[in-house]
């Protein structure tokens, strides 16, 4: 491979120093006071953007450890997105690749990022029916993510840092007023919503599938039980209503 032009060699030395000043010396002939402007501006910019998305991680780890993590991220990670909103996602990916970061922190970071991701999910363009027939039409979910974690990430705080594995199911969704909400689910409701999230089954069809999976011979029991759950979800605005349009139909 041909050697890079001098100006690009300089540029790469410049950014290598900004990313990791302890390992890479500044390019020769650049005033340290001036170089410091870039070191500080870039680190602070990353720090502010990332910290804004992960307040609980920051609180749980403490400022020193948190800063160290972001330093490692800036030094080692090639962020691929030009879109600022997606920087926290690249931080989550970087964290996931760090072997010395505990699994509960990785899960918490993912959960904190989901709030941002859900706030920007596209809205469904399926038409809502006038009546809310959750059983015989297709229940329409608000923009959402269904999440399964090994830890009760939604309860983590400085005072509560779970170390034992507790399967945790969450629905994170955006309500009609653009606020992001979460609901803790049990495993069965999680499964029901997973079936419904394809937006192809009516409530009755989804509950029938669920009854089969649960080995319940009398589907009516599950349908009755599930109807109550669907109405609760409607009240909480996790369901927007129902539609007769199938998401897979063209």
């Amino acid at each position: 491979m041909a050697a890079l032009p001098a100006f690009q060699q300089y540029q790469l030395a410049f950014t290598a120093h900004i990313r990791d000043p302890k390992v890479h010396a500044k390019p020769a002939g650049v005033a340290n006071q001036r170089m410091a402007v870039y070191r500080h501006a870039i680190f602070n910019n990353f720090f502010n953007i990332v910290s804004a998305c992960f307040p609980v991680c920051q609180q749980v780890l403490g400022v020193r450890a948190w800063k160290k993590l972001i330093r490692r991220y800036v030094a080692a990670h090639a962020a691929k997105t030009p879109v600022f909103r997606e920087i926290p996602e690249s931080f989550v990916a970087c964290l996931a690749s760090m072997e010395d970061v505990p699994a509960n922190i990785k899960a918490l970071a993912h959960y904190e990022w989901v709030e941002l991701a859900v706030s920007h999910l596209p809205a469904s363009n399926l038409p809502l029916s006038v009546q809310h027939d959750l059983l015989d039409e297709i229940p329409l979910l608000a923009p959402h993510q269904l999440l399964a974690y090994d830890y009760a990430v939604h309860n983590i705080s400085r005072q509560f840092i779970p170390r034992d594995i507790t399967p945790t199911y969450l629905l994170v969704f955006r309500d009609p007023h653009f606020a992001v909400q979460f609901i803790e689910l049990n495993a069965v409701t999680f499964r029901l919503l997973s079936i419904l999230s394809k937006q192809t089954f009516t409530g009755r069809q989804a509950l029938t599938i669920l009854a089969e999976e649960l080995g319940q011979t009398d589907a009516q029991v599950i349908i009755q039980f599930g109807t109550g759950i669907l109405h609760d979800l409607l009240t909480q605005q996790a369901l927007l209503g129902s539609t007769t349009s199938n998401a897979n139909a063209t």
Partner: protein
Amino acid sequence: MSTLADIQGAGLGLKRELIPQFQQFYQDPHIANIQFVEIAPENWLGVGGKALHDLTWFAERYPMVCHGLCLSLGGPDPLNIDFLKQVKSFLSHYQIPLYTEHLSYCSDIQHGEAGYLYDLLPIPFTEEAVHYVAQRIRQTQDILGQRIAVENTSFYAACPISSMDEITFLNAVLTEADCWLHLDINNIYVNSVNFGFDAHAFLQQIPGERIVYSHIAGHYQETPNLLIDTHGKDVIDPVWALLDEAYRLFGTFPTLLERDSNIPPLPDLVKEIDTIAAYQNRYGLLPIAKATPLQATLVAV
């Protein structure tokens, strides 16, 4: 349909914090001098929910300019074509007639992988860099099917391998790329202090016929000879004087106030917009006065 001719007078950079006030004061005569707004595609590409709702609100009410931050025209990694195509469809979807970018870079190559640093870094002013950047601007214009404007950027570190000064570099790139100039008045001043040159002499060498758009802003004085382009304070008098001189030399052009931090309430902030309008009125409002010959050739791009 917005066209370049709709971008005129004075404008304000759109910050999230300002959105509720914009909505509150919409059509209030006190903010009448805000004739257009500017957004960074990096903040708005692919948004949903509340942000999409707000973006649509503005797109329906104000002419908009896109001022990019992450195209990395001077970057060592390949131009992000995928991103550029997203910008193109964004411009077309919201009928945004002008896209501008910085004469700088914000990305590098880490362990063989391209990565972003999200800040405006100084390109060494060398002959090779002129050709390299000009080629990437041309490539950008080819992909977008429209001419872009390139902004003179504020810098803090002089590059020891530079073989020319900033104005020579800027002019060489503009000529070779055959692009427009997005003239940042405050950046001329900031760099004149940071690198000890005469801001007015710099301004006099600007190719006025390429100016389509400009910025004005405040900055932070770290030391008497080091200014940081924070957009966090009021515009200072020497910068207003430079704007005045630019209008006198080149005719007026649309000018946007950048305010990114320490943002006063809109009714206060608008006073600086009014000042821009007052300077413009002094010279008669000629939108994009000198851009016509370049616009004519754009049809061929």
